């Protein structure tokens, strides 16, 4: 067909003309700006307003950041160095670095211990956070609480070992008897653990060395960002199992169990955390046997744990409710009893749905650990508002300290929420 016109027409183009580039206004950066920044009058005005706002913010912050002084011993010395120029006195951070991180009472020559525990935390968290790591690494996670306790509090090494042995004994008893019935295995496990701890406790108090390898550090000497980390991690780990139990209780068909769970969850969710911390601080002592002295940090851990557990229970309840009814019925029709159905069918799916929600609760919980400064514990905020701002060298410095605290929390919380989004993408097994 191509030679149909060969005789009648002088020239026929038989190839397509290459596409011309779009006009300059329709390509590259200009086009992007026209579409994204100046598409309408309103948009153009918004863009200009935003640029002006950014300009003023940067003009305020950048000199403060780059003229900063990092090496003076006090605020007056810092102001002398600055000589009236705009600049931050970041030397308060370098000078009080250890206090900000570890509190002002932790023995100076022992700082390596919490630092090691912090580094090990990543090794322990990794197998839980990333599912494609070898499952055998979970042993590190299981051992971590005992190692971290030993590193941070010190004292005799026998205490964490006995605690660990109790858990091992409990697990062995549970694994041996769970085949007959879950309840038998569960209670046998608890009994075995309690027995081990009781015997072990007597042995430890009998043979504990007077001078342990690691000096014992009492709880009241913990402080700084370390305290926030300890409270956040401990309370989160303790509150997840409690929250799952509460959620199951709330879903239960037994009216009494259900009622107790509902009252507990709604009560805890209805009051602010501060009132619970007041309870830990001034009220809880009235309800304990006379003469028992309970660590304040332990009381606070209990309160934050039940606070977080109530919120996690609601998240897990959402996960349980989101499962199709067929899953429950499938468990029943297979002849599984309640514990088996929950362990093997319901909870693995429900928890998977609730993981993003639980991570959100974790971020909130970590932020809420700052509230302990209100009951005069010296966490990061407590350190800043108490010893550092009260010191004569640093009286009157705010932005550098609070900015540092905000930055530290932002890094951790933003990291967790980014992890949560990544996890959500990983877990979406594509039902859409």
């Amino acid at each position, binding site marked *: 067909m191509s030679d149909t016109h060969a005789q009648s027409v002088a020239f026929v183009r038989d190839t397509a003309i290459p596409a011309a580039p779009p006009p300059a206004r329709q390509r590259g950066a200009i086009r992007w700006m026209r579409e994204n920044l100046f598409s309408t009058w309103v948009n153009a005005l918004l863009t200009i307003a935003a640029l002006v706002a950014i300009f003023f913010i940067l003009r305020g912050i950048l000199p403060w950041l780059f003229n900063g002084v990092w090496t003076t011993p006090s605020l007056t010395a810092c102001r002398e160095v600055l000589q009236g120029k705009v600049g931050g006195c970041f030397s308060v951070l370098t000078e009080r670095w250890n206090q900000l991180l570890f509190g002002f009472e932790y023995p100076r020559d022992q700082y390596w211990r919490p630092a090691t525990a912090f580094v090990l935390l990543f090794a322990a968290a990794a197998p839980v956070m990333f599912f494609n790591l070898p499952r055998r690494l979970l042993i590190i996670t299981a051992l971590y609480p005992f190692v971290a306790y030993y590193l941070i509090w010190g004292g005799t090494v026998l205490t964490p070992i006995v605690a660990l042995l109790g858990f091992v004994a409990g697990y062995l008893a549970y694994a041996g008897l769970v085949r007959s019935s879950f309840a038998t295995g569960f209670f046998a496990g608890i009994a075995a653990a309690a027995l081990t701890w009781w015997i072990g406790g007597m042995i430890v108090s009998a043979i504990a060395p007077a001078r342990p390898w690691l000096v014992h550090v009492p709880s009241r000497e913990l402080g700084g960002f370390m305290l926030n980390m300890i409270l956040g991690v401990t309370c989160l780990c303790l509150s997840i199992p409690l929250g799952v139990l509460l959620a199951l209780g709330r879903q239960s068909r037994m009216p*009494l169990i259900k009622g107790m769970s509902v009252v507990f969850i709604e009560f805890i969710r*209805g009051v602010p955390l501060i*009132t619970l911390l007041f309870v830990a601080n001034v009220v809880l002592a009235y309800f304990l046997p006379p003469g028992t002295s309970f660590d304040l940090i332990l009381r606070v851990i209990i309160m934050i744990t039940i606070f977080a557990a109530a919120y996690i229970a609601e998240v897990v309840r959402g996960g349980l409710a989101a499962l199709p009814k067929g899953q429950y019925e499938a468990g029943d029709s297979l002849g599984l009893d309640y514990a088996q159905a929950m362990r093997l069918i319901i909870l693995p799916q429900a928890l998977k749905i609730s993981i993003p929600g639980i991570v959100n609760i974790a971020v909130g919980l970590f*932020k809420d650990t700052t509230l302990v400064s209100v009951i005069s514990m010296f966490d990061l*905020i407590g350190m800043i508002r108490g010893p550092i701002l009260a010191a004569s060298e640093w009286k009157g410095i705010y932005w550098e300290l609070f900015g540092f605290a*905000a930055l530290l929390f*932002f890094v951790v919380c933003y990291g967790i929420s980014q992890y949560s989004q990544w996890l959500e993408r990983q877990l979406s097994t594509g039902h859409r």
Partner: protein
Amino acid sequence: MTTMTDPEKGGFHVSQLLSDTRYRAYTFQAIALIALIVAFAYLGANLVSNLRAAGLDISFKFLGSEAGYGVEQALIPYTSQSSNWQAAKVGILNTLLVAVLGCAMATVFGVIAGVLRLSNNWIVSRIMAAYVEAFRNVPVLIWILIIYAAVTNAFPVARDYLGEDPERNMMFGVMAFTNRGVYVPMPVWNAGAAVVLAVFVLSLIAIALYRRHVTKTLFSSGRILPTFWPTLALLIVPTVLAYFIMGRPIGFDAPDTLSNRFNIQGGVQISASFIALWFALSIYTGAFIAENVRAGIQAVSSGQTEAAAALGLRPRRIMKLVVLPQALRVIIPPLISQYLNLTKNSSLAIAVGYSDITATLGGITLNKTGRAIECVLLIMLFYLAISLAISVVMNIYNNSVKLKER
């Protein structure tokens, strides 16, 4: 041969209490009940013996005794000779004040940020994303302290405004920003002010009636009556007329910088702690609300917008008639729980010395009287009452917007 496992006929064995699903529930509940009673009895016995050892008792008589401390901001008459109960009421009102104002401002922040985050203007949506992330990921306590430090350090001292030739002039001649707070004019109600207020309320009712009439006309005849200008006119004209007819009964007591050499007199002092708490709570909660608003708008599928456009609706009507009613159903429940969170977070007032219920009853009264159990119990009951009230409202709302299915 049948494989049915009929319940065994005959006698009841004790072992069935654990093995038979018909009875097991009762066993477990009995165990739980006994454990609960034992736990409460144990705690109660400890409480009684501890109280006896300390020579105390549980009584609320301390509420009637003299408080003996002053508060910075009281909405009802209060002096240091007033009772602890009066102090608690001052605290309750202050909590409610900061909660209501905070919720209002948080909604404004949140809606603006949430809508702008979906804007197709790249730089604006980035800025809003930065705002949301920055405020969601830093504890609210830090924001309260930062804003409090900003108010108390960056604002000038009151002395700068004083005298015939002040270093600073008040904004619009009536507002003074000092490190102790902001001084604004106080309205003074003279005789006849009630009439102006009544006229204002009546015009609000008239606006509502007019709008209903507009909708009715639209549905019955298809005619679209104007709404914006009549509403504006109804809002302003009658009230202004009444104001002038009654001889300007509402005046303003502006802050006076001349009568006293040491401090500003007159007007209303909005304390620095209140400003810090209000602003920090609303900007923090606003970041969460922004996310709710964004999620709500995105939850309306684009097919709805396109269908409305295909029916020939204009963009504003699409928003008003199609998108918003569906988005609000998604937005409002988390919005209300954000309000609840804000109210509970307002208990952080104690960190900046704003006298809310936690700071008066749970702070100074508790420390002065030593009545820890009673004070904490009362505070908890107060917050529980608020959260129960809010969840009742939420349930009513949820039922009213629930999709009516057959």
